[in-house]
């Protein structure tokens, strides 16, 4: 890192820009965060900026769904010390990757009459194309990991991102397990924590928005859902809302659902 503040570039691909908002406006430490780093490129935040880098850190938001994005991503990688995907879209495909469940053309033609000018490709996470140096997970990205990341930059250490399932946080919160107690199809056991077990704390089952936990045993959970009476399609939907292109949740995606054509 050059002396002074870390130079940060923020790049957005296919997504809702929520993580950028989380970075700038939603977390509690807006001014602190902005004061500690130098944001040299972020279109949401400012006109101009130095798009071509170099950066100490590039925060990448959004799923890769176009060829040009891959090329730009590679350029960013080559001028950046730490490339960090932020948010489920960039980390595991997130919601934009739900479309991977069907043929690209099928999806396209449901939305546009003239599909000839569309250039969309399968949706994939950032690490499918370039090596990355850590993930700030969440949808939107989690405040705790973001704070850990910023303070780690200040201290000069490797950030310790949360790497355990939602269940652990759920227990630390003393929540009653909604899967066992109420038979709600909770994704907590296979979902990376960081949210503070938000959904079970609000009386609803986790729907997996933090994306897969490393080494998640999706098949075992899918079997449990089946025993609870969920149909194959329902199970598949649970495992494809956040993480359709990932290895971890593949075994839970038992079967593609019966798409209703009209």
């Amino acid at each position, binding site marked *: 890192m050059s002396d002074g503040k870390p130079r940060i570039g923020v790049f957005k691909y296919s997504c809702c*820009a929520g993580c*950028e*908002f989380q970075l700038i*406006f939603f977390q509690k430490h807006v001014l602190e965060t902005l004061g500690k780093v130098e944001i040299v490129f972020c279109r949401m935040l*400012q006109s101009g900026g130095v798009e071509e880098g170099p950066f100490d850190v590039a925060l990448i938001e959004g799923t890769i769904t176009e060829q040009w994005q891959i090329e730009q991503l590679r350029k960013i990688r080559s001028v950046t010390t730490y490339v960090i995907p932020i948010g489920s879209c960039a980390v595991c495909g997130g919601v934009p990757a739900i479309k991977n469940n069907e043929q690209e053309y099928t999806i396209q033609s449901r939305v*546009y009459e003239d599909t000839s000018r569309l250039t969309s490709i399968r949706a994939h996470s950032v690490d499918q194309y370039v090596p990355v140096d850590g993930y700030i997970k969440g949808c939107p990205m989690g405040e705790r990991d973001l704070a850990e990341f910023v303070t780690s930059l200040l201290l000069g250490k490797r950030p310790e991102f949360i790497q355990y399932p939602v269940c652990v946080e759920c227990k630390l919160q003393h929540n009653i397990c909604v899967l066992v107690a109420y038979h709600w199809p909770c994704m907590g056991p296979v979902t990376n924590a960081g949210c503070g077990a938000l959904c079970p704390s609000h009386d609803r089952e986790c729907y997996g928005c933090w994306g897969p936990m490393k080494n998640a045993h999706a098949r075992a959970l899918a079997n449990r859902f089946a025993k609870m009476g969920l149909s194959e399609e329902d199970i598949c939907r649970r495992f494809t809302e956040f993480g359709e292109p990932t290895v971890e949740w593949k075994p839970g995606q038992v079967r593609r659902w019966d798409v*209703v054509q009209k």
Partner: protein
Amino acid sequence: MGRGAKIEIDYLARVEGETALTVELDGAPLLQLKIFEPPRFFEGFLVGRKYNEVGDIVSRICGICPISHMTTAILAVEKATGIQVSEQTTVLRHLLAVSQIVASHLVHLYTLAMPDYYGYPGITGMLERFPDEMARFIRMKNVMNHLSGLIGGRPLHPVTHLPGGFTSIPHPDEFGGVLEELRSIRADAEQAVRDVVDFQLPEFFAPCENVALNTENRYSFNEGRIVSDRGLDISVDDYDAHFKEWEVPYAFAKQSAIAGRNIFRVGALARLSNKFDELADRTKSLAHEVCAGLREPNHNPFNNNLAQSLEIVEGIEQCIGILESRVFEEEEIDASPEPGAGGAATEAPRGLLYHWYRINRKGVVEQAKIVTPTAHNFLVIERDLKELVSERRDLDRGKLRLLCEQLVRAYDPCFSCSVH
């Protein structure tokens, strides 16, 4: 200015989403808003998803108005499936909507628009020059985030909101805490209006039809009939019969118009033009004081900024009024969906938002349609730009360029939303 000149802004910063702008000054002004944000195909992949996932998924259309998409989708799903909700749910949804509209307006005014009027590339450089304004902004923003987060579990992409109602209701003490905070930012909100007056918004006359949702006796956001200041008055159920949508070759967003009627505008200014009389007393008197001109339907799109600032005051008043007058109780969601089709419209921060779904016997979406405020405004933004350019074509090129950007930003468009 030489002939054959062109204004090209290859990337519009400080708006949500990816857009370029080309204005040909040569001969007949040609204008194209090139919305090149890559399409995300929500309407495509929502097909096949369960009715109760729709809200969570469409929330991810937009990081700044997730609540609008979520609520509209849930209302549409409920309409389609015949799910009923309690009156308390409707009130909570209103609070949620207001908290997000105020928060969104704050972000737009202080970080996207304000830099334009004081000649800064963005908020970062302004922290030192405008410490009071920035502190005010953060104060109000935090309170609104707190309210959204309290009801929704988190301010961005709430988790408690499902077809049928809310999974958990905050404790009265927590509401009490936010109420205190809301009271504490009343003065900030009024100051926000004055901050915007200080912007010195350009004069520009661009008349069109102002379209908004309206109910009797209330400045509402989540319900009502679709009305305009020129006599449009239709039920949301008839949306499809009146509104048309089509593709354009230079943008991934679609354009929209009302069959057989004039070009129209949606958003804060359009709402105010239609619903000025329903404003809370406090807001109304402030409006009279600082900007008498807003009383009548207003045709200066730059004034959208002012309308937004008044909605900040209005929103905070509404929340205070609701929280002072009622208690919320735990209730269980009881949702059993029937097959059917239905649509719903709400007022997102940027204007009229419409979602429509057809849902089958298994509770699975068969067809989805989403029309965003920016799609509704697409035509009028282009038209306004054209007029602005021909009116001021003698202006210095740099100034004209900035003016064009200011105009687009005044609409507070959300291009990510528009290419959902």
